[in-house]
């Protein structure tokens, strides 16, 4: 063995060990949940369950509020995504293409959503919502979810619109296309990858949002993460693990579908100017 390690070099070995620790650190918790979800009986100190079963899956699906929470979560995430597309895409186009007064002030005002610690912001909103009666309402929860997505839903599409060469739009206009036609058949398709990434990220963000919903939606608006809070404290860990997988599944499906579009550069453009 010794000659083998020498041949690869010490640097490679250290690299490999560090990266293994890294992979275990990030994958370990998730892998643990997968094993737990399919375990029937798993007593301490066994390394693996000595009985595998699906019984916890049945148990979780038999809970009434679980099915309800899945429906509610998807409904809210769809509303949030649709609303943010309608509100933010026009703004993104204006930021990228149109000259208007105070453009920079408007553009940078969106940074405010990320310039405050989240829980502080949620508490401030809850204090306001309490006064105007938006606590424990759908509208209140949708508004809280919008905070997190407002900035990258504006900025990622802005970057996408900016990256389109004006020459392409101009040449379409030169051959007689109307402005609307140019937007529909040149500008929008070319900006689509950026808009898609932002939308997927928005949808997932809303699906996973727990803290703000917990504060504002209590006690009736129970989305999946809120149910998860109570499952963690009330049920055996295998039930929690099953629900974790249900809650993570949409994320993984959407990520695999959008894999080609997501890169560090596109994502980073939602949080900073480059």
């Amino acid at each position, binding site marked *: 063995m010794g000659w083998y390690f020498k041949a690869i070099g010490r640097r490679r070995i250290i690299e490999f060990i560090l*990266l293994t620790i890294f992979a275990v650190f990030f994958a*370990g*918790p*998730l892998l*643990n*949940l997968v094993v737990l979800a399919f375990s029937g009986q798993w007593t301490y*100190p*066994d390394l693996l369950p000595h009985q595998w079963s699906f019984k916890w899956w049945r148990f979780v699906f038999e809970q009434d509020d679980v099915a309800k929470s899945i429906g509610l979560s998807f409904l809210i995430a769809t509303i949030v995504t649709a609303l943010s597309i309608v509100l*933010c895409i*026009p*703004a993104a186009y*204006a930021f990228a293409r*149109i*000259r*208007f*007064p105070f*453009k920079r002030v*408007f553009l*940078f005002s*969106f940074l*405010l959503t*990320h310039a*405050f*610690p*989240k*829980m*502080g*912001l949620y*508490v*401030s*909103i*809850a*204090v*306001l919502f309490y*006064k105007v009666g938006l606590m424990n309402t759908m509208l209140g929860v949708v*508004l809280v979810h*919008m*905070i997190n997505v*407002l900035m990258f839903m*504006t900025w990622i599409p802005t970057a996408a619109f900016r990256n389109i060469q004006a020459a392409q739009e101009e040449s379409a206009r030169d051959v007689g296309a109307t402005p609307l036609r140019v937007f529909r058949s040149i500008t929008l398709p070319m900006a689509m990858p950026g808009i898609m990434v932002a939308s997927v990220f928005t949808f997932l963000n809303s*699906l*996973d949002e*727990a*803290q703000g919903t917990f*504060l504002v939606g*209590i006690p009736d608006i129970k989305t999946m*993460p809120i149910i*998860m809070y109570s499952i*963690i404290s009330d049920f055996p860990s295998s039930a*929690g693990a099953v629900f974790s997988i249900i*809650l993570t599944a949409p994320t993984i499906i959407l*990520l695999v579908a959008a894999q080609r579009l997501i890169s*560090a*550069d596109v*994502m*980073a453009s939602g*949080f*900073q*100017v*480059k």
Partner: protein
Amino acid sequence: MRKEVKQAIGGLIMVSPSFVLLLVIVVIPIVQSFVTSLSNGEGGYDLSRYQFLFTDKGMRSNILFTLKVTVVSCALVLLVSYSLALYMRFSSGKLVDWIRKTYMIPLFIPGVIATYGLMNLLGNHGWLARLLLPLGMTLPRLIFDEKGIVIANIWFNIPFATMLLSSALTGIPASIIESARDTGAGKLRIFLRFIFPLSYKTFLVALTFVFMGVIGSFTAPFLLGPNAPQMLGVSMQQVFGVFQEREQAAAMAFFTFLLCSVLGYFYIRSMAGEEAANR
């Protein structure tokens, strides 16, 4: 001239819906929570709610605890993220490609789920404890302890910080580094003279996000933190939801804004400066 005016009006109309939403969900809540935090409950306005933060023993230890966890988490996250981003920028091979493809995954995992996974993995009778048992090792207490919160913060924040930093490092042209290498500059010199100066702004942006992310966190400290002292996020939720003391909760929220104000201000200013340089 007419066309320009038309454009300007069109632009303002397109921007205004999302701007109004921003006013409703960010600006107005912050202003009114500041006003609320100043009311002393007897009809008058003073700083008594803020005074309480520093005179109450439990609250004071919560604040110190939050700051400690935040500073430790920030240091660890940035150290690892920056090293990882550098490694991904300047190494090649199958292993690196594989990391590039996967390191962002935790960014999309719901916070509740990751926290729960960590609880099960690192808990008293968790998987890690079982794995270490045959080796004769026992785990120190990690869950329901500040170490657990720090570990969760690392888990959540490294992918995001690495994403920002690696996007900044990719932006450094290879020609700069190559020409420096040609003139005989060593690795350390290249790093100090070129790579760090060219990426320190993003470094500070990443620091801002991690700092605010930890101070404003709730899920991880709520689920796996100790009962006392608490992180401010958890304490705030309790003061608001359980004790129903909205004025006090507003004061705590505003206090966390003050803690982050320097970094928040820096973040907005540096972004604005960057934008001006691009034009």
